[in-house]
């Protein structure tokens, strides 16, 4: 994985010093609260319902054991002993004290981490495929491109005071596991007919109060044009994006109002006017970054593992977990495994400091010292020898990290909601917990099959409810929580926004409603059909009937 050189390290240190000075100037009165707020946000510091919240960047979701241990140390020393992994592959600490924040940033810098641009109206942490560098359907490891963009976007002199936040995601595989179609700019690494690797550029996707699927901005962008093209696109957005209404300030609204063709003309004209050679990275720089993502030193192994087979035969719980939580690896004899942070009754995406230590220890010993955070709020051990998988699992069991539910009905995405967030209009975490309790049986979950429930506690959609197979949006209706249900959302290559079923439901009704939706699917499904496939075949009507019939 990427390692800082002296320039990266200096910049992060200088940034911490800058923030320390900004805090001082806020206290002195040189900066007003209105001036200080965007500055602290661009350093990841939010003021939440009960306390400050610090969001730490985990660029494209990749980190090593040393970094994970440092996060654990920070959680123990300056917080309440846990952290929350987010849908943008970051981690949030919910209870830091303002005065400790510069020290926390110092501790992050020690392990080549930071909280730069994890919030604010700037280019945010770049996200990517958690199975980068190992997936069998990959054209190229997207992390080289993501790191190049991370650097290019960090403290950009022109694009740090945008109209609104700006999120970029990159995938290098044919199956989109980075939700690129619901990002401000989504980048797919593709190969053209001539065999050259380049980029398919999407723009104007996003969730929030006006959800939209991204549109194609450029079918094929040669790789050396990436940074100039991004500069052109961001300049058009910065110049013409709306500033009169923060709810209409994302690039998706500009693209929608201009029309993709006019927007494209503007970007292409700007791009054509640039001196690309002055802006683009030189190929040696790309090669320098790519070298950090070279495959680790895999052993030459037979694909089959007698040890794994024996363990599978003797331990049915292990077999269930392997079936549900592992992912094929391109190197024979290896697998990737998802550590679910969705134990029944837990807060989705939360890990304790002890669990972070356990994950770090396992990664260091048995996964080439690497971990990935997924946008589903889980953690991936990317490179496990099949021979060692049983050992990994037993260690996960000991740490309470063995939930065998990846991709199932209890693998729920949920934002922090009204338990933490000052924007929230309803609770999210307890709703997820209640649904998980209802479907606690592993056997039942597996009979139901792949089903993504995503819960947001307000219209800003941090829980990605629009792209949940079942989406749940918590609102406030005259002082009471009301949950709207959407069906058929999908963040992948077949991206779709969920359709609303109708009026919302009370907090206590949600588990029943979800159960009725699931039962309707079970009753209607054909052999081998997933929830999403059944929904697409039969449509909304039977589901709607199942959840509203009683009231009618």
């Amino acid at each position, binding site marked *: 994985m990427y390692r800082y*050189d002296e*320039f*990266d390290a*200096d*910049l992060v240190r*200088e*940034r911490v*010093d*800058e923030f320390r*000075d*900004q805090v001082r*100037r806020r206290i002195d*009165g*040189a*900066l*007003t609260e209105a*001036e200080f707020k*965007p*500055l602290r946000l661009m350093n990841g510091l939010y003021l939440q319902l009960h306390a400050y919240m610090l969001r730490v960047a985990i660029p494209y979701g990749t980190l090593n054991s040393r970094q994970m241990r440092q996060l654990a140390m920070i959680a123990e020393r300056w917080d309440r002993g846990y952290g929350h992994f987010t849908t943008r592959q970051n981690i949030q600490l919910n209870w830091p004290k303002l005065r400790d924040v510069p020290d926390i940033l110092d501790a992050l810098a020690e392990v080549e981490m930071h909280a730069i641009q994890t919030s604010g*109206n700037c280019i945010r942490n770049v996200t990517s495929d958690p199975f980068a560098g190992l997936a069998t359907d990959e054209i190229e490891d997207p992390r080289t491109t993501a790191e190049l963009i991370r*650097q*290019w976007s*960090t*403290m*950009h*002199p*022109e*694009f*740090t*005071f*945008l*109209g609104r936040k700006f999120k970029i995601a990159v995938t290098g595989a044919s199956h989109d596991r980075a939700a690129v179609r619901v990002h401000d700019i989504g980048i797919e690494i593709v190969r053209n007919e001539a065999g050259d690797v380049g980029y398919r550029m999407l723009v104007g996707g996003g969730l929030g109060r006006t959800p939209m699927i991204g549109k194609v901005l450029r079918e094929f962008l040669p790789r050396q044009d990436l*940074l100039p093209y991004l500069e052109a696109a961001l*300049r058009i957005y*910065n*110049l013409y994006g709306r*500033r009169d209404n923060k709810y209409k300030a994302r690039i998706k609204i500009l693209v929608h109002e201009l029309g993709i063709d006019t927007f494209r003309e503007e970007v292409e004209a700007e791009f054509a*006017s*640039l*001196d690309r050679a*002055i*802006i*683009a*990275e*030189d190929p*040696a*720089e790309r090669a*320098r970054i790519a070298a950090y993502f070279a495959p680790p030193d895999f052993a030459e192994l037979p694909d089959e593992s007698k040890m794994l087979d024996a363990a599978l035969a003797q331990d049915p719980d292990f077999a269930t977990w392997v079936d549900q939580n592992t992912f094929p690896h391109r190197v024979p004899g290896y697998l990737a495994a998802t550590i679910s942070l969705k134990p029944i009754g837990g807060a989705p995406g939360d890990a304790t400091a002890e669990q972070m230590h356990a994950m770090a220890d396992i990664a260091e010993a048995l996964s080439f010292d690497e971990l990935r955070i997924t946008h589903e709020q889980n953690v991936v051990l990317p490179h496990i020898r099949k021979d060692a998988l049983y050992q990994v699992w037993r260690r996960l069991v000991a740490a309470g990290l063995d939930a065998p539910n990846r991709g199932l009905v209890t693998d729920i995405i949920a934002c922090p909601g009204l338990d933490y967030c000052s924007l929230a209009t309803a609770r999210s975490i307890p709703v997820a917990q209640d649904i998980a309790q209802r479907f606690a049986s592993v056997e039942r979950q597996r009979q139901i099959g792949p089903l993504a429930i995503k819960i947001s506690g307000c219209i800003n959609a941090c829980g990605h409810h629009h792209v949940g197979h079942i989406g749940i949006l918590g609102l406030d209706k005259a002082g009471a929580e009301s949950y709207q249900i959407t069906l058929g959302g999908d963040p992948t290559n077949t991206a779709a926004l969920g359709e609303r079923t109708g009026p919302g439901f009370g907090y206590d009704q949600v588990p029943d409603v979800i159960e009725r939706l699931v039962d309707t699917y079970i009753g209607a499904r054909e052999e081998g059909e997933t929830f999403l496939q059944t929904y697409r075949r039969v449509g909304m009507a039977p589901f709607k009937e199942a959840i509203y019939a009683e009231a009618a």
Partner: protein
Amino acid sequence: MPRLHDASGVIDDGWTYADAPLPNQPTIVPLAALKSGGPDFDGVAPARLGVAIPNDVRTDAVAPVLPQVSLVAVDFPSFADGRGFSIARRLRAAGFDGVLRATGPVISDQFAMLLACGFDTIEIPDEIEVRQDPADWSADLERFSARYQRGYGGRASILEARRAARGG
């Protein structure tokens, strides 16, 4: 009083704002006044004329008047409204080589970015001036030793430095 900064520190402002060119002083006039022209502008040397533009104007609408002026003042209605950064880049790309001035309640934390995008001078209003120590502005200008981006002014590019370290 508004205060004017450039890379060297606080400087005197030799310009005056008016709706039409003043006989004895270099004058910054509104874009609309300059575009409507008239006898007031006859024979005024570009060295003595500047234009103030809002930040929602298309730069291609400004381009025709650039040969008439030696200063363009770009308005920042709020420090959080970053359109001016891109306007400066575009005016420089259009070949404007006079003075680019940012005017408005920008803060010292933005100073280096403003210069990087092509501004030469920053004019901050009274309300900012009374709170912000010129020493903070100087310190913020020196704070970062390098930046990642290429093609912007001011401090060194990390990509260039890495290239140099590679020996080419």
